[in-house]
Structures are given as structure tokens and as C-alpha cells.
């Protein structure tokens, strides 16, 4: 019974960060219609920057890591959109071209990471080493932080999208790009912000997930694939669907790791995805765009 609850709690903590990752990817795809293959590399770089600040050359605390990573990743996303994506958009076949470009970027960023930080695994220390005693079980404080941070980020994002002008503009651009331009919304700026925000999101996920899973230069691909499976399973175009998908798959993962081992996770995930798509091609709560 104890172990079951521990597995569940671990699963929930992971799921919340998976939700953040998946929502970030859904955000950038939904608004700019560009599939960012370098998403996993952003995750890795977020983690590496935090490592550099906390473990590597300096010994800053976690808070500094957050304060630095969020804007740096935002600028990275913004620059990628402006320098790489925007020129490609002007020509025909941009959907494919941008995918190829982000793929290339991913390889570049991974190799750069290997060059800067070496090929061996690195690890971040836990946010807080303490544990909380609740009755007869122990919950790691780090897991609580993971969960709370994710929930706060998701709520902030929702408020941003619903209540602020920029957020509304981003939603408008994702629903009807021509209509948005007709009304005077600078669509290109919105694409840039979407890229930047998604990079920040995944960077934070990188910091919080890294103490549990090591940082390696090629580790981002797992993140990308997991995010994509969650979006496809939960339904493209539905934030709620992505949320539910993240938690269902994340908790499932926790039990699978306990029962069968981590190698089986993706097999189960893909089988679940396949089964769902056969019955419901849109995903759980998806809408065709």
C-alpha cells in the first residue's frame, strides 16, 4: 500500500512536469504551426545552464538558476524564430522547411552541448533534500516543488492567454492567422513570443526533472517524443486534453517502471496512443484545426 502511494505520488510529480513540457510544445505548434524538433535540445540546454550555474563553475542556488534560465531560454526561442524560422516562412513549402531547420538546429545544439559539457552524464542536486512525513509515508519535498511549480506555470499561462492582450492575440493568431493580421495583430511577433515561451517552459521542466534523471547531450529526444505522444494522445488543439493525457500517461509510467522496468515505458505509451487513435483519431479531447 505504501509503495503504491509512493509510486502514485512520484507519478503525479512527473506528470505535472510532463504536462508543462507537452503544453509548451502544443503552444508553439498551435500558434506558429511549426513543429519544433529542437524542443528536446532546449530542455537539455535549460538543464545544462542550471548545472553550470549550480554545480559547475559557480555554486549558486536553484533560485538563481530559475532567474537566469527563464529569460535566457525565452531569448533563445525568440532568436530561433526570428533568425531561422521567419525567413523560411516567406517561401513556399515552409512547413517542411522549418521542420528540417529545427531538426538541424537540434543536432547542432546537442553537439554544442557535448562540446561544452562533455559526453558524460551530469546531475543536478535535488531542490531540497528534505522529506515530509505524512502519517506513515514520506514524500520528497522536491516532488512537491515539481508539482506546485508546474501547476503555477499552467495557471499563469491560462490567465495570460485568457486575460492579457498579448495572450488573446496569440490565441487569435492560432485560430485565424489572416483574421489576426486583418485586425492589425503583428503575427510574426506572436510567433516569436510563442517560441520564446515554449522554450522557457521546457527549460524549467529541464531544471526540475534533471535531479531525478541525468542530463546528457542527447537526452532531449526522449522529452520531445514524450511531449509529442502526450499531445497526440490528449488531443491536438485541446489544453485540457494535453493535461489529462500527461497525467494519465505519467502515472501509468510510474507503475510500469515499478512493475516492468523503464525500458517498457515507451512501448506501453505507444500502444496506448495507437489504441486511442484507432478508436478516436482526434485523441481524447482533440479538435480538428
Amino acid at each position, binding site marked *: 500500500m505504501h509503495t503504491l502511494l509512493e509510486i502514485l505520488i512520484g507519478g503525479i510529480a512527473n506528470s505535472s512536469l510532463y504536462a508543462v513540457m507537452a503544453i509548451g510544445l502544443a503552444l508553439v505548434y498551435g500558434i506558429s504551426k511549426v513543429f519544433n524538433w529542437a524542443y528536446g535540445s532546449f530542455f537539455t540546454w535549460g538543464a545544462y545552464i542550471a548545472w553550470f550555474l549550480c554545480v559547475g563553475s559557480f555554486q549558486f542556488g536553484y533560485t538563481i538558476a530559475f532567474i537566469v534560465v527563464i529569460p535566457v531560454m525565452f531569448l533563445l526561442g525568440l532568436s530561433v524564430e526570428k533568425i531561422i524560422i521567419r525567413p523560411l516562412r516567406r517561401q513556399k513549402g515552409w512547413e517542411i522547411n522549418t521542420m528540417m531547420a529545427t531538426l538541424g538546429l537540434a543536432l547542432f545544439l546537442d553537439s554544442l552541448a557535448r562540446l561544452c559539457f562533455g559526453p558524460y552524464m551530469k546531475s543536478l542536486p535535488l531542490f531540497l533534500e528534505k522529506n515530509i512525513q505524512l502519517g506513515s509515508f514520506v514524500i520528497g519535498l522536491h516532488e512537491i516543488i515539481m508539482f506546485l511549480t508546474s501547476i503555477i506555470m499552467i495557471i499563469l499561462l491560462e490567465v495570460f492567454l485568457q486575460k492579457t492582450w498579448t495572450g*488573446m*492575440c496569440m490565441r*487569435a493568431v492560432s*485560430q*485565424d492567422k489572416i483574421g489576426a493580421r*486583418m*485586425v*492589425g*495583430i*503583428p503575427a510574426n511577433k506572436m510567433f516569436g513570443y510563442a517560441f520564446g515561451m515554449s522554450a522557457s517552459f521546457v527549460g524549467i521542466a529541464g531544471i526540475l526533472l534533471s535531479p531525478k534523471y541525468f542530463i546528457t547531450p542527447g537526452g532531449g529526444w526522449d522529452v520531445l517524443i514524450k511531449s509529442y505522444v502526450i499531445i497526440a494522445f490528449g488531443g491536438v488543439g485541446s489544453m485540457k486534453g494535453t493535461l489529462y493525457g500527461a497525467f494519465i500517461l505519467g502515472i501509468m509510467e510510474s507503475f510500469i517502471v515499478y512493475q516492468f522496468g523503464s525500458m517498457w515505458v515507451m512501448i506501453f505509451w505507444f500502444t496506448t496512443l495507437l489504441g486511442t487513435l484507432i478508436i478516436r483519431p482526434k485523441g481524447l479531447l482533440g479538435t480538428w484545426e
Partner: protein
Amino acid sequence: MDLRGKSCKITWLEKFIWGRVKIMLEVQKIDVFYGEIQILKEVSLRVNNGEFVVLLGPNGHGKSTLLKTICGLHPVESGNINFCGSSIIGLSPQKIVASGLIYVAEDRHLFPEMTVMENLKLGAYNFRARDKIDESFDFVFQLFPRLGERKKQLASTLSGGESQMLALGRGIMSCAKFMAIDEPSLGLSPLLRADVFEKITLINKNGIGILLVEQNIERVAAFSDRVYLMEDGKIVFAGTADDALKNKHLKEVLLGIS
């Protein structure tokens, strides 16, 4: 219904300058291409201050392209377009909207998963319009009471007539001095069509210049100041609606009478 005093107050300076600038929109001999195909050939037209000008012509002859080009959504190969005295060639749609020109497309391009209120609010995105957003809302709901009843409804659930009203309302929210409207009566019943034209006339009476694209002259003859006829990407007639109806060739083209 003169609500101009309430919404989009025009400063005395604007009035002074505007009074001297008689021409609101001037299109000067523009050539527009889609790839290799030339759609518009040396097209010139003009809309004076506060005028209601109609652009007529058969389908597929370039009317919509002309409107898209004026609003910055399509590039111009050669020629010039002046709005209130300054050239708007090469400007982004954002800048053109900010200078007071708004486009209401044939396809409307509403935001389907946003409510009527949100669609209207986004219409006032440009900085000039944001200060006057409450007044603009009042104007829009007085003009289109049906929209007022459906404030929280999603745009995708509106009927054809209602979504046309929303498209026009969204255009009004931008505090534009000039509206380029593309076939607003498309797909509407005759009753709704008459209603839409009546509303556009009311908008025009509030000092907003109108360039309307339509196929049938009968419907708009009563309210327009002047009409142009476009055939094959060229302007083949410019004059008043009465003159147009007297012209035999035009009657054939516009009314299908042989």
C-alpha cells in the same frame, strides 16, 4: 444616428488637416500579380472623404485582390496607393490598420473559438482604438442589437447574418476612418442583405469612407456616391450609379440583360 461625437473623437487638428485632404484613398495605376499571372492591370481608383464608393464586376476579375492589396495583405508590383495623403505601399497590415484603414473580408475570418465580445475586443487591438474601446462597443451594439444579445456566444456558432454583423462590428472597433468591405451580402437572405446595406450606409453617415465590393448594382445603386466597374483586372467604368445604369454594356454585365 450620429454617434461620431461619441466614438473615435477626431481632434480639431485632424479635422483641419482632413478638411484639406479631400482624397481619402487613391490607388494609382497599380499592377498586381499572383506569381506569373497579372491580376490587376494599371488599376486606378479614388475614394474621397466620407464617400460611399462601390466596386462592381463579375466574379474572379480582381475585385477581392484589389481590396487585399489596399490593405497590405498582398504585394504591389508597380504603382502607388495613397491613404490620407501618404503612401501605404509596402506597409504591414498592422501599420495600415493603425493609420485608419480596415478591411472586412469576404470570408470574414472571425476567430471561431472566441466569443463575440472577444472578437470585438481584438478588433480594437491597435493603440488608437484602445482608449475608445467602450465607446466603440456602444456604437457596435447600437448598430447591431443582435450581437448584444449574443455577447458570450462563440463566433463559430453564429448564423451567416450574425457573423457578417460581427465582421463589420470588428471593423468598426478599430476606429477606422475607412472601411474596405468585400461582398458582405454573400450567402445572405434578401432581407438580411437589405439590413446589411442599411447598416453600412449608417456607418458611412458617421463619416467613415466606404469602398464596397459587390456584384449586383441594383442593390447598391440607392446608397452609393460613385461606382467603378472592373473587368479582367482593369477599371472599365467610373461614374455615378445612375450613369452606370444608363450605359448599355454595363447593364449587360451587371444585370445580365442582353
